[in-house]
């Protein structure tokens, strides 16, 4: 039996690695999760045959409860709410790692001090990831509205961290792992996760969640060593390393650094607000519809506002109407448009916009000069020319879509609202730009009706 268990774990580890590998390329991504899923299934089923186990009935109940709840919420959640669900499930993983550590520490049977240390480390990391992820979930879900900042925040967090590590050290050195110290230790670790996450702004959450994801992986690996479970060691370490790199990549794509996300306060303490000359010029639907109906080339630039307005289906309809008139329609997708990487791609795919109409920044930026109308729907920062021109701007250096180079620019947004970065957008004041004020979905709908008349 032991051999069968080992070989299943081995197969699971291979499937995880191959699955992740496939997930990192768009062509094979979907099969990747299936491979990893197969590995998980095999590993879970074979574990029922682990020698000397008890409590089967309760165990099955626990799996059932956790599994069904997650299945149901996972199916129900809308695409825009994905990041918080990932945070939630990730927190559960961290909590599970913490729970394993708690049980093992209570039992107190360790082969050596190294394993004891690993158990404590895993407990610390897992607990931070658990409570931190739950806060991230609450923030994104709108349960906690504002970044909570308190005085001496960094100092206090550091103190709590030091205390948690100290108590961990006490557990290891005294070997008394089932007493009150254990409780204090877990309390400190959980508190740290909360306090560390509260001050971070909602829009930075994807990076933070990715970081906690990597931490959970590490915690799982550590507990894997404690339980002598190769599948956990390898899967956990792989996720720990992959997640660390992914966190860096995500931060870079958003033009941030990880330490800036964790310790900075983006958008809070900006320098002098640059004043933009000129005024925004509004336009009405009829004029826009004429402009577009007789254009030859149109590029649509969606942003966070499209997600807020859930306008993707209307936009797809608009595309169809324009295509039917023989107009060349392309979508320009900025890598960090929206609030999570790939946000626009997912939403537009959901609305059945064919993938080959979506163009990357690099692919499309040269085409704006030959474009009649650039239609900006709920995007702001990703089309802000200030990022090219003003070295003092907080978004300076971020690559942007050159919508300003199109012959005409139409911007659909609700009002004077700023983007995520809080920076004024020079594009809205440009001579070739007109503002179509209103909700993204409603305005696109009106536009479609108007164009259909020609």
């Amino acid at each position: 039996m032991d051999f069968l268990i080992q070989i299943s774990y081995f197969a699971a580890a291979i499937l995880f690695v191959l699955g992740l590998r496939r997930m990192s390329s768009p062509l094979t991504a979907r099969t990747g999760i299936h491979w990893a899923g197969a590995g998980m299934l095999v590993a879970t089923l074979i574990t029922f045959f682990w020698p000397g186990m008890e409590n089967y009935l309760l165990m099955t109940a626990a799996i059932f409860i956790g599994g069904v709840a997650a299945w149901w919420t996972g199916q129900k959640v809308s695409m825009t709410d994905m990041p918080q669900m990932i945070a939630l499930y990730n927190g559960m993983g961290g909590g599970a790692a913490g729970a394993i550590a708690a049980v093992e520490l209570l039992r107190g049977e360790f082969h050596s001090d190294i394993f004891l240390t690993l158990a404590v480390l895993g407990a610390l990391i897992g607990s931070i990831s658990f409570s931190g992820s739950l806060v991230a979930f609450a923030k994104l879900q709108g349960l906690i509205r504002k970044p909570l900042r308190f005085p001496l925040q960094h100092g206090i967090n550091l103190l709590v961290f030091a205390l948690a590590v100290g108590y961990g050290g006490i557990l290891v050195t005294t070997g008394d792992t089932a007493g009150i110290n254990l409780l204090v230790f877990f309390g400190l670790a959980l508190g740290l996760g909360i306090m560390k996450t509260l001050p971070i702004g909602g829009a930075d959450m994807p990076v933070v969640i990715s970081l906690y994801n990597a931490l959970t992986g590490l915690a799982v690996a550590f507990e894997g060593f404690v339980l002598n479970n190769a599948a956990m060691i390898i899967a956990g370490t792989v996720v720990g390393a992959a997640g660390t790199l992914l966190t860096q990549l995500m931060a870079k794509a958003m033009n941030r650094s990880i330490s800036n996300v964790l310790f900075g306060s983006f958008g809070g303490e900006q320098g002098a607000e640059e004043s933009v000359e000129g005024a925004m010029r509004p336009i009405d639907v009829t004029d826009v519809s004429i402009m577009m109906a007789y254009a030859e080339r149109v590029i649509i630039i969606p942003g966070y506002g499209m997600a807020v307005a859930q306008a993707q289906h209307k936009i797809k309809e608009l595309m169809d109407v324009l295509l039917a008139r023989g107009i060349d329609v392309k979508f320009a997708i900025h890598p960090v448009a929206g609030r999570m990487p790939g946000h626009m791609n997912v939403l537009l795919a959901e609305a059945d916009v064919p993938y080959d109409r979506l163009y990357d920044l690099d692919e499309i930026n040269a085409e704006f000069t030959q474009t009649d109308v650039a239609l900006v729907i709920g995007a702001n920062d990703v089309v802000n020319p200030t990022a090219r021109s003003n070295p003092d701007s907080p978004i300076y250096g971020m690559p942007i879509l050159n919508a300003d180079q199109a012959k005409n620019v139409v911007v659909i947004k609700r009002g004077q609202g700023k983007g995520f970065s809080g920076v004024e957008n020079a594009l809205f004041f440009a001579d070739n730009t007109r503002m179509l004020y209103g909700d993204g979905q409603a305005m696109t709908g009106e536009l479609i009706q108007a164009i259909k008349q020609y």
Partner: protein
Amino acid sequence: MIEGFTALYIFMLSAFTGYEVISRVPVILHTPLMSGSNFVHGIVLVGAMVAMGHAATTLELTIGFIGVALAAGNAVGGFVVTERMLEMFKSAKGQH
């Protein structure tokens, strides 16, 4: 028992593997990949089952129960969400 240098080797090699597998992933896959790796550490379920299976006291059993339920949530939820997101990329038609 995986310990000593063997443990170190496995740890190092797994870290290399994880790092290399992810390097050069396109930005649009960042979120699905985060979700996918989130699913993979759902393997913690296996450990939670073993811990609960050997629990002796009621306290251990209770914590074990919570651990298993959380781990199952991690695994199942991670899978469902990742699968749903990646399904969206189906229209890729061999490009990118």
